[in-house]
């Protein structure tokens, strides 16, 4: 049997995605003989320079976790794309930007200033104590990669074949993934490009909570303020839950097991492009519904003001489409103008 060459590469990841692979435990046993691991820094001391020596397309599958946050991640993404037949965005970060994309509401300069200029620091030698380059031995310099102004999903940088959402993905998705891999080994067949390896409905379908026929929110409550009723839909209790616009596949982990609302880590539900804006719209529609005249302009303003931080609420795991589009458009312009030079 020919072995599958597998790599696990990363952008700005937290390690949780890699842990989710380790945590598969005995599910990994059948893979042992089938896989020839080419790169996985989380597991062993693999070096990028060894990957550089590989032939183009020599790696069969790369799982890439984490979004593109620094100049280093751009290089890594392109290197693994070039060396791999199949590129899989693994985890919400690589698929949609993930938690790190929340930083998109600040520019890189604001982030660096906050942390290294105005922030508390052990070294208070003044404003310039952030040193991107340092000489650690005489004549041997190290330079930190550049922090980009945005934090974007993998597919804004390179072509992605499959998406495995989740923060981190769950074993159920691995069952599908392992099927795909073993079928690929046996027959060379693959699912259509762009396939999202997760559920095919909205999360509400998976969530067993009782949903009233009509949901109206007259007061918004944040999860820490209450101990929600575990049986009734959280939206109906005034808690913003992104279930209606989020893809299923996690087994409604948060709403069923933890009694907290869905934050949307599985990304937009099928047929939904920008889940955040859809949810924002839906929340606005059900807020104070049927009582609008009575509440009047002032009353409605006061009610809507209870929704704090719409960016962090509706876009916790996914870059807004507008940001992605504008960034891509800008890149194209750059590309064209650098070509015509």
């Amino acid at each position, binding site marked *: 049997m020919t072995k599958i060459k597998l790599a696990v590469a990363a952008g700005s990841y937290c390690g949780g995605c890699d842990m989710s692979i380790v945590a598969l435990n005995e599910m990994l046993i059948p893979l042992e003989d089938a896989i020839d691991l080419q790169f996985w820094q989380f597991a062993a001391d693999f070096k990028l320079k060894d990957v550089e020596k590989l032939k183009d397309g020599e790696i069969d599958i790369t799982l890439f976790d984490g979004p593109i946050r620094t100049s280093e991640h751009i290089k890594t993404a392109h290197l693994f794309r070039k060396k791999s037949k199949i590129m899989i965005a693994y985890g919400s970060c690589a698929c949609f930007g993930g938690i790190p994309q929340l930083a*998109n509401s600040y*520019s890189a300069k604001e982030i660096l200033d906050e942390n290294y200029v105005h922030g508390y620091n052990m070294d208070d030698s003044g404003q310039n104590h952030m040193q991107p380059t340092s000489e650690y031995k005489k004549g041997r310099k190290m330079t930190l990669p550049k922090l980009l*102004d945005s934090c974007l999903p993998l597919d804004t940088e390179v072509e992605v074949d499959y998406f495995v959402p989740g923060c981190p993905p769950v074993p159920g998705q691995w069952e599908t993934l392992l099927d795909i891999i073993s079928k690929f080994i046996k027959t060379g067949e693959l699912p259509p490009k762009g396939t999202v390896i997760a559920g095919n409905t909205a999360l509400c379908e998976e969530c067993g909570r009782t949903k009233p026929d009509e949901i109206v929110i007259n007061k918004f409550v944040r999860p820490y303020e209450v101990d929600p009723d575990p049986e009734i839909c959280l939206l109906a209790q005034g808690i913003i839950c992104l279930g209606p616009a989020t893809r299923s596949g996690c087994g409604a982990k948060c709403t069923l097991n933890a009694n907290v609302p869905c934050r949307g880590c599985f990304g937009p539900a099928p047929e939904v492009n920008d889940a955040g804006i859809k949810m924002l719209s839906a929340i606005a529609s059900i807020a104070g519904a049927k009582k609008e005249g009575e509440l009047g302009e002032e009353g409605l303003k006061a009610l*809507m003001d209870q929704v704090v931080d719409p960016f962090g609420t509706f876009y916790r795991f996914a870059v807004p489409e507008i940001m992605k589009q504008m960034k891509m458009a800008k890149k194209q312009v750059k590309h064209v103008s650098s070509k015509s030079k």
Partner: protein
Amino acid sequence: MPEILNPKPKIVAFFCKWCSSKAADIAGVSRMEYPPNFIPIMTPCSGRVEPEFIFDAFAEGADGVLVAGCHLGECHYVVGNYKTLKRMILVKKLAKEMGIEEERIRVEWIATAEAKKLVTVTNDMVNKLKHLPPCSSKLKGVTQEEKTND
């Protein structure tokens, strides 16, 4: 392109067909002067203006967006403009977090007979946006030059 054909700031205006759209007609017919910066789009009701339309307008290069509908309580679809009001509060907050200033998004209730209000609102909006840099340079994380620590 000559300035007159491509006035800056560029503002997309969603006019409800039952009120502000008619007010714009009346303003035109009565030869009231209003700025050429607006790209009017007629909608069946201000409630038809979905939040993504606002962001699409910005993504396509608008510097501002105006949504005009019937006065509260006078929407032909009863609650369309209440929906607009509620949504736009969240849209403005979201936009602000993304680096788009509040002045760039405006909601106004303009009845058919209020051509004058339309003229005042449009002039005022142009005056306020004139002093802001183009919106495309505002969106955080998108358009600033990627020069940080090197």
